[in-house]
């Protein structure tokens, strides 16, 4: 169960009552419900501040996984003339990655997104947004198209991670991610990355190496999703909450680390409380970044991309006596 959905239950109920009251007010012109409505609205506002004012990392993980949070296709379908392209041309079409061509406010772009489902059926179809190698190979095809036709590449990250299964290993999950990274590293066209949901591990980064990284306030981004991280660290997936706390996976952290270039604020309570507005803000940020990046020569673009990541790290020279070695 999503802890945010649990947490916001009183608010959701209150909001339902409010909606009901407002409808009644509109229909019956008899009793004046305005004072009651105002009272409840104030209460709701207070409740929102209480619930969402100071989320823990674990709650933010669940905010990023909120069942109503806008998903990749919600952003992508806002592009003009979006055409979805399918398949890796070698093995399978992987529905956990969507890709295609579209127009962003007058600029033709290539897009790639990791796609979760909204319900169980859709989630089974989308494999909970966990790509197989063929998903990354479809993405590579679109990356090459972007380069060939000089279209900016826009990506949307939302995955717990690359799928850890038998077929995925047999068909080279490592190779698929590695090749995506190498391709993005040398792609002679601007790359704008959006972390809109869950950014889990190499499976996220495989479409996330780029020139400008946008992150939604309540998204998360980490070396591994809390559950596998806990398994790896303590051989105990139930310690995911502990891992979430340690991993520094919030947008504040990522911005502070210099990994994310721009954080987009969400409405109090999360993006799903104003999907249209949030999507618009994200796409506007992408548009601004593209416009700026398109002015650069390809060589300059690649140099800047290189420098951006080259300096990420935390290390120093050991100066004391090395006899211990």
């Amino acid at each position, binding site marked *: 169960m999503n802890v945010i959905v649990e947490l916001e239950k009183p608010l959701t109920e209150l909001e339902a009552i409010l909606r009901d009251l407002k409808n009644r007010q509109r229909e019956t012109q008899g009793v004046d419900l305005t004072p009651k409505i105002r009272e409840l609205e104030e209460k709701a506002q207070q409740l929102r501040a209480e619930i969402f004012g100071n989320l823990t990392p674990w709650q933010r993980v669940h905010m990023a996984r909120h069942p109503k949070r806008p998903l990749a296709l919600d952003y992508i379908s806002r592009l003009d003339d979006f055409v979805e392209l399918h398949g890796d041309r070698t093995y399978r079409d992987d529905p956990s990655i969507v890709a295609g061509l579209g127009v962003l406010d007058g600029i033709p772009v290539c897009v790639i997104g990791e796609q979760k489902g909204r319900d169980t059926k859709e989630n089974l179809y989308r494999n909970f947004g966990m790509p197989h190698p063929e998903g990354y190979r479809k993405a590579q095809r679109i990356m090459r198209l972007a380069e060939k036709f000089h279209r900016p590449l826009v990506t949307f990250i939302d995955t717990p991670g690359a799928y*850890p299964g038998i077929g995925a*290993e047999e068909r*080279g*999950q490592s190779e698929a991610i590695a090749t995506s990274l190498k391709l993005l590293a040398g792609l002679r066209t601007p790359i704008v990355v959006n972390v809109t949901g869950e950014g889990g591990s190499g499976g996220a980064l495989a479409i996330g190496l780029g020139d400008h990284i946008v992150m939604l306030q309540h998204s998360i981004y980490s070396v591994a999703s809390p*559950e596998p991280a806990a398994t790896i660290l303590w051989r105990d997936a139930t310690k995911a909450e502990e891992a979430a706390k340690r991993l520094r996976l919030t947008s504040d952290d990522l911005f502070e680390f210099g990994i994310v270039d721009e954080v987009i604020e969400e409405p109090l309570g999360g993006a799903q409380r104003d999907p249209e507005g949030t999507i618009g803000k994200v796409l506007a940020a992408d548009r601004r970044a593209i416009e700026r990046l398109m002015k650069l020569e390809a060589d300059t673009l690649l140099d800047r991309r290189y420098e951006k990541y080259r300096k990420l*790290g935390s290390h120093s020279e050991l100066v004391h006596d090395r006899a*211990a*070695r």
Partner: protein
Amino acid sequence: MAPTPNWLRRRAPKPEASSDPLWVVCPECNERVYKKDLAERLFVCPKCGHHFRLGSLDRVALLADGDFHEIGANLVTGDPLQWVDRIPYPQKTSQDRSKSGMLESIVVGTCRIGGIDVGLGVMDFAFRGGTMGSVVGEKIAMLLEECGRRKVPAVLVCASGGARMEEGVIALMQMAKTSLAVQRLGALGVPFVTVLTDPTTGGVSASFGFQADVIIAETGAAIGFAGRRVIDQTIRQKLPDGFQSAEFLLEHGQVDMVVRRTELKGCLTNVLRLLTMKVPA
């Protein structure tokens, strides 16, 4: 007699994994093997051929012709996440340093292999499971940049449990950093070869490990993206025989060849010669 290579001179006494100072039990054939014998045989079991994990300095000794000029030898990691679980991360790495006799999970430098100038990086599972954090990323970037400047091929010997959790997303970004360095080296037309040894997984296999022009797997190595524990927790079904073994990867088209440790230097020399040989005008 050849002069002692420089990397050997400043080598710490090898830390012992098992308690018995003289004997070790082979996990494959259960035979007791005399440790000195094992070291002389490149840590390959004389009874069954099982490849024990090889320390990075032993690996350098195996591959380099003579001197090895280390790059970034003094680099130690920071603590970007201010990580604490049982104990603070800086304390962990400090313990790792004393225990392993190494400063980090990789050594990189320049040397010759079979007479060919190369840049060589070797990971070491004995230091935090060979995980990749800031230092691994930085040293690999430094090495590949040096290879680019000198136009000599790069060889990376992988042995890693993946990205280092305690450095979080900073560790993840080392995948990007190393990928950019590999791409840049490739754009210069300089060859890049990896040797995947036991184990090569996660963020290392999914970045530079599988980005090479030629990928050599060492006999018996476990290679994959996801660790077995994570796979078990996800799919909860029996894994096929030999799953994620070097031989399994060869069959599935992932690696160019599987090579025994005793033949590794010869094979690597041949590959490097073929990739660097000039075409006569």
